[in-house]
């Protein structure tokens, strides 16, 4: 498979404080990578390096095989979808204007194309057409998140970066949004980097999970591998509760097919 994003020997420090060190990671096209770790572990830093919002102190990042140092940062960012915590919609723009923000940066002329893209993405994220002219303050939290996702995807980028996008919504809405995002990923084959601090979200959404602690990678593996064989104490501690969702005693865990200790983990996603 082709490599979409590659981190090579990344180090990032603010003065004395080292945030990331010896960070090497290769992400294949079409993967849904969830990044999890305690706050301050460098997960957001790693994410923001992909679209050049943060520059590494040393090391290189390659997107589609090209070192992003040599790329026009603005062009780079326009081809990468970006959605961050809360919705951070532009409060002075309507839903339509928010979603068409990036397409408008890319091509000012083709209004028809932009309009179609807005309609298409509103439909995909489950927003009804009549919300088009609403302002963010007139939307519910869930609707705002949906607009945020639609906005990040409106220019059909190859890569989507998401920084705890569902952090501020209620549990029920979050489950819907997760399901929709998963579906979008499957339909479009887009490469997703998704930062979260919720391990069940990380396991549920990711095709691969990156566990970080203290600026270092603890483990980078498929969700079932993470559950089955945590590489470090840190990962073990992190997934402990997820292993026990069957609420069985330790010695009987293997008889539960959802526990992650059993051989079959295929149905994990369907939980």
């Amino acid at each position: 498979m082709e490599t979409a994003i590659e981190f090579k020997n990344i180090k990032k420090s603010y003065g004395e404080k080292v945030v990331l060190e010896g960070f090497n990671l290769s992400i294949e096209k079409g993967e849904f990578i969830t990044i999890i770790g305690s706050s301050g572990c460098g997960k957001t830093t790693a994410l923001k390096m992909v679209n050049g919002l943060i520059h590494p102190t040393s090391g290189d990042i390659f997107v589609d095989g090209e070192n992003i140092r040599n790329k026009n940062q603005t062009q780079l960012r326009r081809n990468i979808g970006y959605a961050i915590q809360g919705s951070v919609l532009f409060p002075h723009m309507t839903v339509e204007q928010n979603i068409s923000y990036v397409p408008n940066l890319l091509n000012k002329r083709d209004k028809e194309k932009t309009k179609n893209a807005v309609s298409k993405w509103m439909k995909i994220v489950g927003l009804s057409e009549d919300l088009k002219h609403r302002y963010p303050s007139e939307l519910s939290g869930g609707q705002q998140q949906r607009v945020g996702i639609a906005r990040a995807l409106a220019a059909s980028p190859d890569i989507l970066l998401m920084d705890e996008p569902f952090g501020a919504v209620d549990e029920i809405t979050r489950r819907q949004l997760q399901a929709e995002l998963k579906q979008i990923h499957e339909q479009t084959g887009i490469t997703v980097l998704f930062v979260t601090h919720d391990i069940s979200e990380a396991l549920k959404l990711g095709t691969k999970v990156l566990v970080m602690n203290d600026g270092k990678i603890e483990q980078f593996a498929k969700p079932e591998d993470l559950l089955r064989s945590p590489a470090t104490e840190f990962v073990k501690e992190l997934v402990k509760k997820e292993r026990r969702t069957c609420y069985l005693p330790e010695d009987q865990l293997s008889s539960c097919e959802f526990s992650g200790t059993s051989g079959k983990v295929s149905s994990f996603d369907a939980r």
Partner: protein
Amino acid sequence: MLQEMWFIFTDRIDFFLKLLLEHLEISLISILIAILFGGLVGILISEFQKTAKPTLGVINFLYTIPSISMLGFLIPFSGVGNATAIIALTVYALLPMVRNTHTGITNVDPAILEAAKGMGSTRTQILFKIKLPLAMPVIMSGIRNMVTMTIALAGIASFIGAGGLGVAIYRGITTNNTAMTMVGSLLIALLALIMDVLLGFIERRMNKRSVKAKKTNKVMAVAAVIVCLGIAGSVLINTQQKDTIQIATKPMTEQYVLGEMLDILIEQDTNLNVELTQGVGGGTSNIQPAMETGEFDIYPEYTGTGWNMVLKHDGLYTEDLFDELEKEYSEQFNMKWVGMYGFNNTYGLVVRREIAEKYNLKTYSDLKSAASNLTFGAEYDFFEREDGYDALCETYGLNFGKTMDLDIGLKYQAINQDKIDVMVIFTTDGQLSTSDVVVLEDDKQFYPSYICGNVIRAEVLEEYPELNTVLEKLNGLITDSNMAAMNYSVETENKEPRDVAEDFLRSHNLLQ
């Protein structure tokens, strides 16, 4: 009072409307420059944060300069008139504009800015698509503040010979016409209020976000621009006129009357147009520099003042020196004295009758023993003049307990209200006869002669020789008592300077 104000307003509606338009013009130009320039500076210091502190510091400092001294600073650079007023008003308007733009922009949620950046907006796109629209409410409130302030402040513009409603206020004060002052002030307040309501309306419209409201906004904006262009166009067309003589007068009642006489006679006897700037604040100290730069062509001046203040001679001026005075004016400034009116408006000292009796004061010398218990009042420039306060005190060995700066127009009020005990008067003061004061004798001949005549730039006289004929008609026309009577008509009987001037000219068969 209200009735009086209504009467003067309806009676002189053209005058007030002209001032209102001028006021609006001066304020709006300043406001427009401040919005554009201040907005630009505000944006720049927000984009380059390091420059924000020093820039705001400088602007804050400028803001604290009292308006009167700001105008004083500017006169040597930009002369008297509208330009200086606009510069000063713009400087004051800058602070609210820059500060609000800066505050508005720097207070935009950084998360929103990062989102915009992360989505691939350039710096310019972030500024125009995100920062400015989000900062707009703060900027708008700054503009509203600034507009009200500028309109109010424009009232002082008349101090330096600019137009606007300040002219009515200042003239009202100078000629003891309270109703005129009140009407001028009320119109300024009204103008500020209307502008604020208008801006409030614009602000509300801008906050309306429905598609329909936005369409209406566009239509209204286009209509407003067309109306503005129309007004500007008609103003420009109106200003294309025949040759204009610029006449200035000092802020004194008799000078208002003399100014009107010059205006009437020149427009009657020649093809020239007269632009009369009445009551330039600061008198000679502001008019003379403007004469030198050619902004003014003619103004009535007094020989003694010319000798001491303009030519800066120390000695006492007597009319024997008139030839020397003319010669030096001609050599130094290329100006001439033409049309000597005949009256001598010299200084005199008066004390309140009560004080005069208490200390038995009859001459200036008598003041010596009592001076330390007395308050001395005079208009601003008396304290600065070569032949003013210091020279007076030195000659008579006086040492007053307190001194007070007064406006020429308010000093009789001050002495009648016992605020001051001794004050300087002019021998042609109309209010002199109605005040309970004793005129003291100048026993050491301290005061020089102050014969009134017109100072005119020689170039103007060469270009329009017909002016000579007009000005010579004025030779010896007015006596001291004529002048005092005319001053009394204006100050106490509340007649218009122009009417008084017309009556006088008519009675001397100079009106056609």
